[in-house]
């Protein structure tokens, strides 16, 4: 069974993110465990491309499709910030403040150019997302 699947109505942004996660798992199979054993809903809203997608952690895999109702986490930012998030090194599952890229992300969060709704209530889900997403 495929770990990461897309629904037929997945927007192009969702296809791109699914491809990114698949490639990251392929190049580092240890990341496969990140999609297991957790249930949760994440929406990513790329404001400048007017695209919102949903990631559903089913417990045995990840399904990427259109935005989900009542997400546990919602990431809101522009497309450039999304690329920066994918390029940031992590420390304890969060952008590493010791790197310029990590500091840039944290600054954007302070200025609300990057908003993550639900990060306080679902920190583990956010960590999984970041680890699956990053290419750094």
């Amino acid at each position: 069974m495929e770990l990461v699947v897309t629904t037929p109505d997945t927007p192009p942004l969702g296809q791109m993110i699914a491809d990114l996660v698949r490639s990251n798992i392929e190049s580092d199979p240890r990341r496969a465990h990140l999609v297991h054993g957790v249930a949760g809903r994440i929406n990513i809203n790329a404001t400048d491309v007017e695209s919102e997608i949903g990631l559903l952690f089913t417990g045995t895999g990840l399904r990427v499709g259109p935005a989900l109702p009542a997400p546990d986490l919602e990431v809101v930012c522009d497309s450039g910030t999304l690329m920066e998030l994918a390029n940031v090194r992590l420390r304890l599952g969060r952008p590493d403040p010791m790197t310029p890229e990590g500091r840039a992300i944290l600054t954007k969060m302070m200025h609300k150019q990057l908003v993550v709704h639900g990060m306080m209530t679902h920190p583990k889900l956010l960590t999984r997302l970041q680890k699956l997403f990053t290419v750094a």
Partner: protein
Amino acid sequence: MPVFPSQEWLTEYVDLINGSKEYEEAASSWEGDLSYVFEREPDKKVPDDVWVWIDLWHGKCRDAKFGVAQEEGEKARFIIRAPYSRWKEVIRKELDPIKGMMQGKLKLKGDLPTIVRYVKAANELVNIAGSVPTKFVDES
């Protein structure tokens, strides 16, 4: 002024890539070739798909070929394709290529994490394309 798409345009583009400090810095460790596909739009004077192959290596363009056969172009590590008029928008800087990919306006074939890692280099390649003095084939 070179017409896009043409060999003359590509030659100018390659010269500008090789003269760009910004690109050299952003792509200093990049290794891999790339095909651009300008998809046919007969009503815009592009009757057939045009394949362009460029060999990029450590911040320089080592070689480039215009009008390569599809079988040859498909061997490239990365392929970026879109209809001719989309490329026009990219060259005119009306469409950001990464946004275009997120919107499905440009299609990428190849290892996405690599493109994401080199997003600055990709943007520089587009900036350079935008700085080639260009006359578009459907406007000539």
